[in-house]
C-alpha cells in the first residue's frame, strides 16, 4: 500500500484526520517521520500535514511564552526574546536538522533525542493539544507519561513561564560528538530563588528513562535550601533515584548512572 499524504488548511481538520486513522502520522519538519518512512516503517500509511499558520506562531513578549508546535529550532535561535531556550535549541542536530525540526516533533522524539523537551519539562511547560471539542491543556509531565498513546493527537503549541533570570534556568547536553551528537544524557534545571533559598526546584533528565523524566529526589534535596556546595552535592548524589536508563551505542546504563551526578553538580555549580 502506498503512503498517502493529506494536507489540510486548518489544524483542527488535521487533528480530525489524525485521530481517525491509526496509521496516520503528523509530519512537522520530517526529521523523525521521513526517517522512519525511509527506513521502512510500515506502520505509517498516511502522512498528515497542515498549512495552518497558527502552528508556527511565537509569542515571546510577555512573562509567559507560547511556541507553536511547528516552530523550528532555527526560529527559536533567531528570537532574541527566547535567549533562555537558545542553549537547548542549539544542542539539537546540525543546521539542517534545526532548520526543519520542530518543538512539537521533539515532544515525540525517542532516546537519544528529545533534548528540547528536557528543557520544557524543567520549565513546567503546558502542552496544548487539539481535542474533540477544541484545544485542551496538558501538563508536560502528564503528556510525556502518556506519550505512547498520543500519536493520534495533534500538538498545537507549548507554553511556559519565562525564568526570572539566566541563573535560574540551566541546561546541559552530554554528547560524544559535538555539536550534533545524540544525547548520552541531557540535564535541565529550573531553580528559582526566593530569599536566597530555592523555591520550586525542577530538575529534568533526558536519556535516563524511556521518556524524559523529573529527578524528584534531586529536587527534594534542593528545595528550600541555599544553592551551596553541600546542597548541590546532596542533589547530585540523589539524582539517580527513580531513573531507569538503558544501554545504547552512545553509552551503557551503568555509565549514565555514574556520570549523571557529576554533570548535575557541574551544571548547578556553574562549572564547565
Amino acid at each position, binding site marked *: *500500500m*502506498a*503512503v498517502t499524504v493529506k494536507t489540510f488548511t486548518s489544524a483542527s481538520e488535521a487533528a480530525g484526520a489524525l485521530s481517525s486513522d491509526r496509521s496516520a502520522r503528523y509530519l512537522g519538519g520530517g526529521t523523525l517521520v521521513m*526517517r522512519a518512512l*525511509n*527506513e*521502512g516503517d*510500515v506502520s505509517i500509511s498516511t502522512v498528515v500535514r497542515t498549512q495552518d499558520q497558527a502552528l508556527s506562531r511565537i509569542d515571546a513578549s510577555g512573562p509567559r511564552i507560547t511556541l507553536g508546535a511547528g516552530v523550528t529550532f532555527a526560529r527559536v535561535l533567531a528570537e532574541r526574546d527566547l535567549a533562555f531556550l537558545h542553549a537547548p535549541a542549539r544542542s539539537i542536530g546540525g543546521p539542517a536538522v534545526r532548520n526543519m525540526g520542530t518543538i512539537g516533533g521533539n515532544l515525540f522524539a525517542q532516546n537519544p533525542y528529545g533534548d528540547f523537551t528536557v528543557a520544557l519539562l524543567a520549565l513546567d511547560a503546558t502542552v496544548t493539544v487539539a481535542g474533540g471539542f477544541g484545544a485542551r491543556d496538558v501538563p508536560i509531565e502528564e503528556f510525556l507519561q502518556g506519550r505512547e498513546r498520543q500519536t493520534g493527537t495533534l500538538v498545537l503549541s507549548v507554553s511556559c513561564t519565562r525564568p526570572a533570570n539566566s541563573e535560574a534556568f540551566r541546561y546541559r547536553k552530554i554528547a560524544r560528538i559535538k555539536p550534533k551528537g545524540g544525547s548520552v544524557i541531557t540535564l535541565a534545571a529550573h531553580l528559582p530563588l526566593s530569599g536566597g533559598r530555592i523555591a520550586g526546584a525542577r530538575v529534568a533528565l533526558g536519556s535516563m528513562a524511556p521518556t524524559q523524566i523529573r529527578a524528584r529526589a534531586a529536587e527534594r534535596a534542593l528545595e528550600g535550601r541555599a544553592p551551596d556546595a553541600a546542597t548541590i552535592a546532596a542533589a547530585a548524589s540523589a539524582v539517580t533515584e527513580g531513573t531507569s536508563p538503558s544501554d545504547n551505542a552512545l553509552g551503557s546504563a551503568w555509565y549514565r548512572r555514574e556520570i549523571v551526578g557529576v554533570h548535575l553538580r557541574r551544571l548547578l555549580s556553574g562549572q564547565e
Partner: protein
Amino acid sequence: MLELRKDIFADERDDNLKEIGKGTQRQDMLGHVTGTSSYFGDHKLQGMLHLKVVRSTQAHARIRRIDTAEAERSAGVRRIIRGTDVPVNLNTLLSLINFGKDDEPSLAVDKVRYKGEPILAIVADSEREAFEAIAKVRVDYEPLPAVFDVEDALKPGAPVVNETYPKNAFIYHDVYDHQRLRFGDADAALAGADHVLEQRYQMSPIEHAPTETNGAISAPDTNGRYVVYTSTQALFFSVDTCAKILDVPSNTFHFIGGTVGGGFGGKVDTLTEPLAILGAMLTGRPVRYVFGREEEMQYGPPRGAERIYIKDGVMRDGRIVARKIRAFFDSGAYTRLSSYAAVKCAAHLPGPYTVPNVYGDVYCVFTNRTPATAMRGFGVTAMDFAIECQMDKLANLVGMDPMEFRILNAYRDGDMKAHRREAKNTALIECVQVAAEKAKWPIRDEFRRASSRKDGGGSRAAIPPTPTDSSRARPTTPSQQRTSYDRLPPTVTREPPRDPPPPAPPPPSPRPAAPSHGATRFSSVFGTRRR
C-alpha cells in the same frame, strides 16, 4: 631500478612533474560543489523494481523454516529470492586471487552467523511494497550459542561460527591458524631487560559512514548482458565477484561506476551488485538495491575490532631490546578482507623501530559480529595506535623524553627489519625532528643531529639467531596487566636474567654491502613467487 620504456610508453608519465607546493583543483570538485556530479542512485530507469533483504534478527541461529506464503501474496511483490536461487551461493572476496576459502553465502541457507545477515531478497514494485512484504516473512530460528570476543572464540569448545574455519581462525596456506613473526630471541631478551612492560590495547569497530550508502542498479541490456550502475570502489573486483557468484562470464556485465559518494574501504565488499543483477535476471526488469542508513550503519562492514597485547623489554638507557606482540583481528562472521589485514599487521611489526628481538602472533578470528572489511590502512592503524601508546609509556618508564625515545629507537637506512628486509628511505627520525620543531618541543642536540641516513646497517643489518618455536615449550599465556602501568612504582621488578643479556644494539658502524636478493620472493598472500 624501474625503467619506463619511453619508446613504448611515451605518454605514460610526465617527466616534468611540478605539482608539489601548488594548489591544484581536484578534477571532480566542480561537479561536487555545483551539485552536478552523477551518482549511481541518480539513474531512474523505466519499470525499475526495488530489492530489499530480510535480515537475521539473531547473532547465531539455525534456520528451521522460512515462511514466505503471506509475503508472496503481498501487493507489488515480483519475486522472492532465496539462497537456493543464487547460482554460486558461497564466496570469499579474495578468492579472485586464490586467497582463502569460500565461506560466505549471498543469502543465508541453513544458518545465520551474525545479526543482520541477509536471508531473503524481495523484489517489489516499490521500496514500500518490499518493506511491507518483509514484515510478512516468518523465519523460524533455533538460537545457537554465540561468541563475540576474539579470545573467547579461540578457546577450545567455543561455538563454531563458520564451519569453513572450524577453529574460528583463518587458516593460512592450509596450515597455519595465525601469522607468525620470529626475529631473534624475544623471551631471552625480555629476561635480560631492565624493565618489562606488558599492556593490553583494544579498538572497536569503526563505520565508514559514507554520505551515499552502498547500492547498485542493474538493468537487462541486449545480447543477454546487464548494465550495472554501482557505488563500488573496486569496479573490476566487483565485476569478477558478480561473475563468480552468478556463474556467468564477466563480459555479461557492463559496470558503470564513477563517482563514489564516500568509500574509505566500505564499498569493496560487493554486497549489493550480485543480488541486484540476480533480481534483474529473474524478473527481466531493472532492479535497484540500496542500503538504508540503518543498514549501512548496522550491517555495512566496518573496520574490524582488534585486541593487541604488547610486551616490551627496555633497558635503562632507553633501548628497546625485545617486543613481543599478540594481536587478534575480529573478522566478524566471514573473512571478507581481514585475513589480509592480519598479514599486513604482521609485516608492520614492530613498527618503525629497530628492535633486535621481535616476536609476533597475529590471528584473524571469526566471531558472531558483523563482518569487517577494509578501511584506510586497516591492519596497521590499530597496531600503530597500540605501539605508539606503548612507546609513550616506555619513555615514561625509563624517564626519557618521548620524542628522543623514538629517535633513539627509530629504524635507519640499512637496518634489518624483523621480516628480513632491509630498511630503506626510513626518515622517521626526520619526521620526529620536524614534528618537535613545529611543536616547539625541545629535544637535545644529539637527537637533533641524528639522521636516518647515518649509523644504520652494520650489525643492525644482521639477522640474529632465531630459535624455532619447536625448540622450546610453547609460552604460556602472559598475565594480563591491564592497568599496571598506571600504578607501577618507579622501581620496576627486574626479571632475573636466565640467559646472558643480548648484545646491545651495536654502536654505529659502516653499513655492509646491500643484502643480496634471490630470484624468488615470498609473499604471505601469494606464497613463493619469482621476482
